[in-house]
């Protein structure tokens, strides 16, 4: 509210100034967002900034970082920098699509079961059942049945996340549907679909955004775990998980091979969680008022 008044009264400050003010007020969003933006940019521009991540150069095996190989090479003489950058593509792709997929399906289920008590009784028991399945086990089972591909990994990681989203949405719907303005909408002749979409759905968005960041972070970790176990993405794609798995034998003589993917994984997950925490503080009205 105050920012709106300030913005209306004074001449608009330069974008850089406004960004600086925003960053000072929301340090976690700024740090997480910046890191994430840098990684995403690098992943998007991978062919421009990195060499070939797949080609073997046995002559260059286990070279330490140098001008030619920024982060050295691995046991097969592959460029660790290029592999790390390309690995980010898989991680970000999996994180993002899992979050979108889980949120889209969980949102629909949550809205329906929050509003219709009959749907609720059946669907939420089903959700409880799904929640009991660990993502890694489901993924291993699915990959062994359907073969390994990024798509299967995404589906396998997303399914156990759906109940978490559905429960969150359902709880918001249950509290919002009791508010007088929803009764007012019914009294004004609004149809159920309109009540759900116009009066209830918007209240679920802020907690959903926050939940989506956490799902994204955990999906990246699970994907790395699956790749590490060799049960995820096909091994010919460079991913942080399979880089760590292949490099762990050479940890003593070539630590850079494991350091780069490990550090990137930790950094990306940390920055997503920072972003999520920052967004939660900003979007949750109860927390925001305290600040």
């Amino acid at each position, binding site marked *: *509210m105050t920012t709106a008044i300030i913005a209306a009264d004074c001449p608009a400050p330069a974008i850089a100034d406004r960004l600086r003010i925003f960053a000072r007020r929301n340090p976690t969003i700024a740090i997480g967002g910046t890191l994430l933006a840098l990684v995403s940019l690098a992943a998007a521009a991978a062919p421009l900034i990195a060499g070939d991540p797949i080609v073997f150069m046995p002559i260059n095996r286990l070279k330490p970082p140098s001008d030619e190989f920024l982060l050295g090479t691995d046991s097969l003489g592959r460029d660790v920098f290029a592999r790390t950058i390309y690995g980010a593509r898989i991680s970000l792709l999996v994180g993002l699509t899992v979050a979108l997929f889980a949120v889209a399906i969980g949102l629909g289920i949550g809205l329906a079961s929050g509003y219709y008590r009959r749907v609720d009784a059946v669907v939420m028991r089903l959700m409880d059942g799904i929640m009991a399945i660990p993502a890694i086990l489901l993924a291993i089972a699915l990959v062994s049945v359907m073969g390994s591909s990024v798509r299967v990994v995404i589906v396998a990681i997303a399914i156990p996340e759906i109940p978490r989203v559905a429960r969150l949405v359902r709880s918001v719907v249950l509290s919002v549907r009791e*508010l*007088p*303005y929803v*009764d*007012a*909408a*019914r*009294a*004004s*002749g*609004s*149809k*159920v679909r*309109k009540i759900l979409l*116009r*009066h209830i759905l*918007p*209240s679920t968005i802020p907690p959903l955004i926050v939940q989506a960041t956490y799902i994204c972070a955990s999906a990246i970790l699970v994907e790395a775990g699956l790749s590490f176990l060799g049960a995820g993405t096909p091994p010919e794609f460079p991913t942080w998980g399979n880089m760590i798995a292949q490099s762990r034998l050479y940890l003593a003589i070539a630590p850079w091979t494991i350091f780069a993917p490990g550090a990137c994984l930790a950094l990306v997950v940390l920055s997503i969680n920072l972003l999520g925490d920052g967004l939660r503080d900003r979007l949750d009205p109860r927390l925001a008022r305290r600040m």
Partner: protein
Amino acid sequence: MSTISPILEVAGLTKHFPILRGLLSRTVGHVQAVDGVSFTLQAGETLCIVGESGCGKSTVGRCILRLIEPSAGTVKLDGVDITGLDENGMRPYRQRMQIVFQDPYASLNPRLRAGEIVGEPLENFGLAHGAERRDKVARLLERVGLRAEAMDRFPFEFSGGQRQRLGLARALAPSPRVIVADEPVSALDVSVQAQVLNLMIDLQEEFGVAYLFISHDLGVVEHIADRIAVMYLGQIVELADKTALFETPLHPYTEALLAAAPIADPGARRERLILEGDVPSPINPPAGCRFHTRCPYAVARCRVDTPALREVAPRHWTACHLREPGAAPGPLKRPG
């Protein structure tokens, strides 16, 4: 007035909320929030329902609008029973019946602009589109004392009284014949209360809308009511024209309620009937007359027989064994 058929006829309206316990949600009892409430509402009049908190007066309002489903009884709007209708069948009747809520903050969607809030019923009932709808919303806003430009603002930019005016504009938008006003001014400052009440009276004259006005504040009720229904523990105990009820209350509970209202005169003295004890639980209401546990005049019969609401004097109904039809409305005697 009684020769014209009433716009709203409520008969035997009952709402029992089940109390669920345990793993299988067994019903272990019922909260008898409303039990056999009957009354009629004439076009253009104001019927107030008064009673202390928890007596079921808001539940009556919500049951009539089918915002909660009544357990039994009928609600006839223009002679048609609307209690059995599904949501689609209900829609044309919703247009004739609107509601204003107590809480001016929670009753407006914080994410919609004032124009969207007031325009929503117009949109739903297909009453106006596009520029026509904007014009209509602007006129409604002006009619309730807001500026037309207010339609582009969000609810948080309005004060409590202004928000209640928005609520009124929304209720008036589909040109209803009945507005259920559920404690519409209880959340407002006294000075603003008077403004909103006077606005409601003006709107009633202009649009001919009937109010079912739910309140616990006798001062407010005295200002706006044509007739008053007094509720105690889910039942109507007395129903009469305003002056009759204030001057010759027939039910002991009404008497106590009036005695409890403050008088703006420090020198005023009056016989005060002060009730003892608390309202009994609506889960296990007392047998016989529900008021007998606190009634200073109660006799043996009151503990056994449930008194019916009877027309004791012309247009004056009460549910009390001690009031026989045609008898003089004098003071009651304490037994013993």
